[in-house]
């Protein structure tokens, strides 16, 4: 379970996120959507322990990211939007690095890594240096590695950037499978159709403030003449823009 408690982050005079308060239940896929520069990546980086909030707290399975970041991070599989990894390692060596880092036993590593590399279509490239991988392959490797220690919480920033249609379908299916097994997934995305397809609930953020949360049907009810998430998104973000 994820709890964001009154998160605020300012960059100088600019408020990146303001008083974000949110709970994501265990096994839920939560879609975090909003226009460019709304504060999605800032929120996600605070949740992953990359940034410190000015005020507020992140609780991951009731462990505070502020008070016990090491324990909190053990529960997370973080997938960033840009696949920067150690280019001089091979795919399998990178997986081994992550396994050691998260203290996955050797036996479990061999079993899980083979399964994940197969699943993400990287088994034939496992001994090639990562520097020779394409953007999409690197992104898939990061995803496979993030799932290696079987985390109860997955935090993903723009999961579909650089992926081909087959990989998009694969990731969608994997997220749903993990969600059924009880994994909590917090995902920021620009792909509204994906959010509509797999997210149990959606939160819309604009100008650093969480303007709406709920299931797709709840949001449809709150917005007039909304046929899908795209309509809801544009209605909510336009009205917010007009207000600001």
């Amino acid at each position, binding site marked *: 379970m994820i709890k964001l408690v009154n998160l605020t982050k300012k*960059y100088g005079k600019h408020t*990146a996120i303001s008083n974000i308060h949110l709970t994501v239940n265990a096994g839920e896929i939560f879609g975090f959507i909003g*226009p*460019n*520069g*709304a504060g999605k*990546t*800032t929120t996600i*980086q605070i949740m*992953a*322990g*990359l*940034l*410190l909030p000015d005020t507020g707290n992140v609780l991951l399975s009731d462990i505070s990211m502020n008070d016990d*970041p*090491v*324990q909190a*991070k*053990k529960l*997370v599989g*973080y997938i*960033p939007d*840009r696949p*920067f*990894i*150690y280019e*001089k*390692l*091979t795919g*399998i*060596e990178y997986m*081994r*690095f*992550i*396994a*050691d*880092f*998260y*203290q*996955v036993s050797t036996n479990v590593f061999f079993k899980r890594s083979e399964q994940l590399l197969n699943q993400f279509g990287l088994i034939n490239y*496992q*001994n*090639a*240096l990562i*520097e*020779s991988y394409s953007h999409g392959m690197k992104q898939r490797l990061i995803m496979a590695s993030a799932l290696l220690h079987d985390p109860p919480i997955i935090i993903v920033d723009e999961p579909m950037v650089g992926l081909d249609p087959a990989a998009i379908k694969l990731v969608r299916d994997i997220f749903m499978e993990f969600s059924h097994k009880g994994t909590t997934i917090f995902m920021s995305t620009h792909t509204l159709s994906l959010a509509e397809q797999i997210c149990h609930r959606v939160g819309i953020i604009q100008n650093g403030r969480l303007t709406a949360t709920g299931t797709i049907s709840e949001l449809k009810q709150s917005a007039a003449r909304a046929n899908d998430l795209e309509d809801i998104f544009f209605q909510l973000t336009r009205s917010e823009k007009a207000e600001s």
Partner: protein
Amino acid sequence: MKNIQALLTPRIMAMFRKGMSGKKLMGMTFFAGIGSIIWALVFYGSYRVLMYFKQVESIGDFLTFKLLSMILLTLFSLLIFSAILTALSKLFLSHDLGLVHALPVKSETIFLSRWIESTFDSSWMMILYTAPAFIALGIVNNAGLLYYSSLLISLLLISIIAGGLSSLIIMPIVLILPATRIRSIFVFLGLILFIGIYVSFRIMQPERFVNPEGFASIVLYLRSISTPSTPMIPSTWVYETLKTALDGPTTAPFFNIAIMLSFALALICLNVIVARLIYFKAYSKTQTAQSRLHSGDNQFLYRLLSHIPGPARAIMIKDIKTFFRDQTQWSQLFLIAALIVIYLYNFSVLPFDKSPMKAYYIENLFSFLNIALAAFVMTAIGARFVFPSISHEGHAFWIIQSGPVSMRMYLWIKWLEYFLPLIVLSELLIVTTNILLHVNPFMKNLSVMTMFCITPGIVAMGIGLGGAYPDFKSENPAQAVTSFGGLMYMFCSSAFFGSVILLETGPVYLFFKVHFQSHLLTIVDWIWITFSLTLGLFICILAVILPIRFGEKQLTIKMQKLRHRDLEKEPDNISEKK
């Protein structure tokens, strides 16, 4: 021509539009100061040597011109070598080439714009730092305006010739071999060549120049190799230009300048023709080079480090593998090896037998001073390997930040990783030099113990300051040694081991008094010894703890700022703010 100008504009504008904050201005002033000092030292050294040669009757001029031709030949070889490496990067490996090749511009135009950049980048520093030697030559020989203007034109033309020859060499090779592979091969060959020259120069014992007995044999040797240089090498044209220009007003230098100018222009034309034929093909080939495969079965490191906790093992194995696969890193090992060979060799040829002091006394004194020298060697190694180790994480540092390891633990893991090899190396150095010096057991123990206490601090300072001044965006973090943080590290580490050794001078002085003057130690002496050694030990402990804490604090703050800057720089955020 307009297209070439347009392609060069971003580079020129970037040079002038760099924000000039107070801190940056301070940093630039600092480096300009260091650069000026080096320039002045080269000038002073050259001036002294040339003045010395001038005073040697009958063979003075011969030695001067022999030196000039050697410098020019070396300069030309280095210019070609540097131009090959730079051209490989600029013409085939730069990240922005994809974008540039997509522009509606002819490939030879792209080639020319990149070639101009490459020729400038590869030669300016070498020309700048060899110029003082040529200026000193002019001053010593009371040269006139003709010499200095010929010098300026010759250096410009030889840079263009070196750039032209280099691009002509590499374009066909890139069609056969991938550019990254060629760069590795050239870096490797260059290093071997440099180390070979460096080591053989030292083993030649150039100090014999100041020894009249040895001097005669060197002059004879030089005479024996005084065959005239071939007129087909461009460095000979520069040599002839400068030599004739030194003689006063004459038209002779213009002949050689004309040769150089025509050759440079011919090379540019030839390059354009070759570029039109094969540059794009070669570039395209570079983009589709086959990836390297590594055996995934290599379990040796995992077995070796199997008893170390997971996160430490992960970071250590990752760093070791990355180190040996990145030629910019492992090539430095050769340089360090050469440094150590010369260091040890110097001890083996020290002329203690010629000293007016007792050999026993001076050998032990040298052993004490050698602690400082060995500590400095360790600092130099630390600056090359330990200090940039945090920056080597590069953009992938998010993995460490989001991983279940605290920043402090991460820095301690890094410390341990470098401490183990460096403590072995430092003890090997000090023990070997002690054996070469035949020092007594007291000095042996003292130097071994001192190095054992100093090395953890030297490593901790490298890690701590490397964390406090990281550069995650650099393509070659090993160059961080010349950054502000790198110089701070050198300074702090030198101050640290200097203070510890200074504290030891008292006890060592008393030891010599006891040993040579049969002096008996008083209570005051014992208090002095205890106080000095305890304070030294205390400083050594602080030097391990404080830098790591400083590094942890600064790295955390820096990362917040960097992430903030990265988020601000994201294109979507910029457009949103507009």
